[in-house]
């Protein structure tokens, strides 16, 4: 007996995210072009004439991050498909009336996630080089590490959001849960530096130095483990989705 085609399920997932994929694509171009133009202007253009060099450095970090954020957003695409499933609960009843098993559906969604992640990674690494060129710097290991870490974080949030939506059968509750986890991650990330930062007044230039040193430290120590972390996140996603899709109404 032939099982439902995996390709059919992937096809459905792609149809669900088609519109958002296009929107992300266009948005990404803006998110990439805009910072590159600003950086080039800092180096060669009008901004170099009007803004002192020491005032630029704080903004530089955010500007350099923008394209990486755009690339990382592609990892969130599968959670959009999840939100569409939740908005149409009858799909789950229909799915259960067919031969599509919980395992096959969980696998299709996980593969979709891997595709989104791959696009993120493929875009983020060349972007790191483009940004470095525009900023007049060279790409360091930490720059690559930052890209990988950011994509890993976005992947983690996508998995949390998607699983939470399916578990609570609600986009709002899934979003609240993800916000909670995000807040916990930010607090956890900032905690080691809180002691030093709270001693300094707001806008003190030393704050940037402390944050940059801390960030570099994290990247150096954690980034090498991102491949393992990504594998772990993907496996956890599959297990969570399998558990959720196997649940029957009581």
């Amino acid at each position: 007996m032939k099982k439902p085609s995996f390709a059919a399920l992937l096809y459905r997932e792609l149809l669900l995210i088609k519109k958002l994929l296009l929107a992300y694509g266009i948005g990404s171009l803006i998110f990439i072009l805009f910072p590159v133009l600003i950086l080039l202007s800092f180096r060669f253009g009008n901004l170099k004439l009007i803004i002192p060099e020491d005032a630029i450095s704080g903004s530089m970090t955010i500007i350099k991050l923008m394209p990486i954020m755009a690339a990382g957003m592609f990892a969130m695409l599968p959670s959009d498909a999840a939100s569409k499933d939740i908005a149409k609960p009858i799909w789950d009843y229909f799915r259960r009336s067919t031969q599509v098993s919980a395992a096959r559906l969980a696998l299709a969604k996980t593969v979709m996630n891997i595709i989104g992640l791959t696009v993120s990674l493929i875009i983020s690494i060349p972007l790191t080089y483009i940004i470095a060129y525009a900023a007049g710097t060279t790409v360091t290991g930490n720059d690559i590490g930052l890209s990988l870490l950011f994509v890993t974080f976005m992947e983690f949030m996508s998995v949390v959001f998607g699983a939470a939506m399916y578990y609570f059968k609600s986009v709002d509750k899934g979003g609240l849960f993800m916000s909670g986890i995000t807040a916990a991650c930010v607090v956890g990330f900032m905690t080691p530096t809180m002691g030093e930062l709270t001693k300094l007044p707001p806008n003190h230039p030393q704050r940037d130095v402390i944050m940059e040193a801390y960030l570099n430290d994290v990247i150096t120590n954690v980034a090498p483990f991102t491949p393992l972390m990504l594998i772990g996140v993907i496996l956890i996603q599959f297990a969570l989705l399998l558990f959720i899709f196997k649940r029957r109404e009581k």
Partner: protein
Amino acid sequence: MNDYTNAIEISGLTKKYDGFTLDNVSFNVPKGSIMGFIGQNGAGKTTTIRTLLNITKCDAGSIKLLGLDHIQNEYEIKEHIAAVFDEIPFHESFNAIQVGKMFRGLYSGWDEQKYSEYLDRFSLPRKKKIAKFSKGMKMKLQISAALSHGARLLIMDEATTGLDPVVRNEILDIFREYLQDEENSILMSSHITSDLDKIADCVTFIDKGKLLLTGYKDEILESHGLLKCSKDDFKEIASEDYISARVTDFGVEAMVSDRAKAKQKYSGALIEKTNLEEIMLFYVNREKKEWS
């Protein structure tokens, strides 16, 4: 598939929720027939169907679909059944072509030619998004897909609710054609009894989780009748001889479940034929006994 007499066999089906219990429901859908599954809103029709499809776990009872156990042989069965719901399960951004492509991958028996013929027959546009379809068009698309993969059992959960009479008639015609192959069967839940009057071979009536009637429609209609009399004459009618009675200023109408016996016992009374809607109405009010 193995040989079987009944497309659906339900025995002692029980499912408990807070405030509602599907209580020991048993009925069969003979192969080659269409079973009208009737009851008012909240009677337990959808719960029964979800249990059949193993969407919901049952607390007790056994279910066989196409002669096979609905849990042990779940995947084998689901190749040969199609469920149609009151709401289209495909996303609004899809179109008919995309739905067909998806189904081609989901079912090994998918017949693209047949699907195309149904789309033409129903005049459904292929490239228009489902979001722009009317309710009737959405239902026709669902049915087109359901009937294009060689399903032997069609399970319809309130699928004709909210459709206009013209569309409902079109759909009923399709079902008559589907049943010309005697291997095919339909379970159709509805509270639109006029549709079932037209098409059903068998009827099962459920109310508040309890099975009240099941059997061949013609036999049920033949055995039931509406006894009409004055209020004074109604006092002579024994309570156990009628299901319930509608009392108005103009007289009394009482539903009897054994028309022949009632004719014999109350020979002076007018006992008319009835229909499924009236049967449903009077059975729903059986606890009140007299109502208006």
